[in-house]
């Protein structure tokens, strides 16, 4: 299109002129580079018996799309980074190593190893060291323990002890996504583990909270992951965004040393870091609890990932937002506001008549079920429904 209109030479001339600041008219001119920005108030906690001082908001690197995000986190003062040997077949570790070259002594790295025979585990650690471009790993955790037997396996512990003695690893622990409470209780009985990486957020049970406290009291440093639980209420709470509120909720538990929210963009790490030095009111916490049941596998986080994927241009986010407002917040006034602003009637009709949906939710939401729920919401809103011509 561009080339057809103007040709390469003319394009180059225009680009060069503009970029060199020669073109008249619309240039904004150069601005001071890297302007001073308000940085977050850094909060540190001790990572259990390791004694390491970690920023309460740390970073899960796995979903990180670009080294720029890591550099931003570093500039913000975040000092603890969680990665794994297997993430993208080691490419994630490579990104950490490459990005923090020359900065290694200013950061702490946690990575993982899978349970195998000693030869394979040793090879895995060696590979991690090479990819991370370092001579030591600050925290090495077993990846994905799921049974108390694994947590107290003396063979695994023996290997970890060797790694420590050889200076390859400073501290060790385990990560878990399932049966977390029982694993933490088992870990608290022994002196095996320095750190536990657990899925922990406001949707989790009192039982897990108690187990986290027990493990923490035994000296295990608790690192929380999956802190956002997918997000929730869009309206800000106490000056915090939804993700910030969820993160803050986790950090209000003093048993947690730090959280490693999975971060993809610079904007997200800015948002997460902003949580340090803030607080939630009791009322906010009560609200947070109320939405807990609503969240279970149902909520659209309005991440925008599906925007533009529908060939008919249906804005799924708006449809799903009505479900969230009606079903989760029980606030039909908000639904009506959305209806007033958007062409939801046409969208709903298009969706209900569409035989195959190509829109995919990256958070695992069942889109068809959500659309059905959106239709039901509109049916239950006679006033708004009539206004927009929806059959009621």
């Amino acid at each position, binding site marked *: 299109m561009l080339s057809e209109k103007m040709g390469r030479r003319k394009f180059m001339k225009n680009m060069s002129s503009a970029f060199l*600041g020669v073109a008249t008219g619309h240039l904004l001119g150069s601005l001071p580079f890297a302007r001073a920005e308000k940085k977050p108030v850094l909060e540190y906690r001790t990572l259990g018996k390791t004694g390491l001082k970690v920023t309460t908001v740390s970073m899960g690197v796995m979903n990180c799309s670009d080294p720029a995000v890591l550099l931003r986190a570093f500039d913000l003062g975040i000092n603890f980074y969680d990665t794994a040997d297997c993430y993208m077949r080691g490419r994630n570790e490579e990104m950490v190593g490459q990005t923090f070259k020359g900065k290694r002594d200013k950061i702490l790295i946690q990575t993982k190893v899978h349970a195998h025979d000693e030869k394979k585990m040793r090879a895995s650690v060696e590979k991690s060291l090479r990819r991370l471009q370092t001579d030591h790993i600050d925290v090495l955790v077993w990846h994905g323990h799921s049974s108390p037997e694994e947590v107290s396996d003396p063979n695994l512990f023996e290997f970890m002890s060797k790694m420590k003695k050889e200076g390859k690893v400073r501290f060790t622990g385990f990560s878990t996504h399932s049966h977390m409470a029982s694993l933490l209780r088992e870990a608290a009985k022994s002196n095996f583990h320095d750190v536990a990486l657990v899925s922990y957020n406001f949707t989790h049970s009192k039982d897990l909270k108690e187990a986290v406290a027990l493990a923490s009291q035994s000296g295990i440093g608790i690192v929380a992951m999956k802190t956002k639980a997918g997000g929730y209420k869009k309206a800000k709470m106490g000056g915090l965004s939804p993700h910030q509120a969820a993160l803050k909720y986790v950090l209000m538990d003093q048993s947690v040393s730090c959280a490693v929210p999975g971060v993809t963009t*610079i*904007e997200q790490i800015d948002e997460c870091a902003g949580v340090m030095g803030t607080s939630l009111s009791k009322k906010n916490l009560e609200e947070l609890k109320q939405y807990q049941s609503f969240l279970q596998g149902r909520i659209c986080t309005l991440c925008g990932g599906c925007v533009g994927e529908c060939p008919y241009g249906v804005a799924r986010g708006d449809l799903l937002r009505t479900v969230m407002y009606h079903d989760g917040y029980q606030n039909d006034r908000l639904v009506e506001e959305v209806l007033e602003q958007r062409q939801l009637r046409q969208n709903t009709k298009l969706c209900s008549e569409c035989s195959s949906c190509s829109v995919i939710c990256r958070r695992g939401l069942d889109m068809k079920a959500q659309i059905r729920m959106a239709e039901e919401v509109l049916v239950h809103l006679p006033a708004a429904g009539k206004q927009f011509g929806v059959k009621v």
Partner: protein
Amino acid sequence: MVMTLFVLVGILIWCEASSGATPLESLIPRKDLPKEWTLIHGPQIYNKKSLFEHINGQAELFLQYGFQKSVFAIYQNKERKENQIEADIYDMGNVVQAFGVFSRFRNEDRPGGFGLDSYLDDHTALFYKSKYFVLLYATESNPDSLRQFSKLISSKILDSSPPLKVLSYFPKNGLKSGSIQYFPEGLLGHKFLKKGFRATYVDDEKESHLFLSVFKDPQEATNALKVYKEDLSKKGKISSANLIPSGIKALKGEDPYQGKVMVLQKGFYLLGVIGFEKEENAENRLAEFVKNVK
């Protein structure tokens, strides 16, 4: 009653066949295995909820890329039991997302000659074809068997769609082989750039990148360019201009983390070059890129 049942089964078979969908389990080789191999585990299916049980936290990345379901199996060498090959076939929903995951996993350009594009080393084979991303892991060095299994699985994926056209938009000169990646969100680490492709170029041992950010419509692309400009003006350095009267917009600046950047809008795309040293090279490359993008 029997007749009704017969008709129902017939309808089901017809529906399956007419949908063109390949049942995921059927992509796992079973009876047609290389003679020295045997299936010892699976096929085991994982869905969005259970994927964490299989690959732990890495499941998040797959979900980000539109993961639908996957099937897993383990093969064992009949003579050497410790010699095993693990196979994972992921249904990623569409070919773009399948390519996306593939592009995040491959380390360098070591094509194995299967699927739409592939990677092969002593222990690992990766490829994508249609909406499937396939990952094979060998416990012992075994590139020949990995290639054999990969070809077998590839042949079972009947969809013969061509490679993504967008990949051909990236100029070849200076392109680091196997460096084009797709990100479903957060291109260049920026939320506002949303989804898109990034490729690495090497000039005099210095790396720079071309990127293509994809939006719903031209207006959304224009808005993103505006946000980009605001972001650079806050955090970096910028000079910006409407380059020509026809409404094509562009900006030039310096990103605090990525280096020098030039971006312009073409339809519902933003195209850019970032991290370069020599402006002339970067401009030439961007111009070729713009010309290629249809």
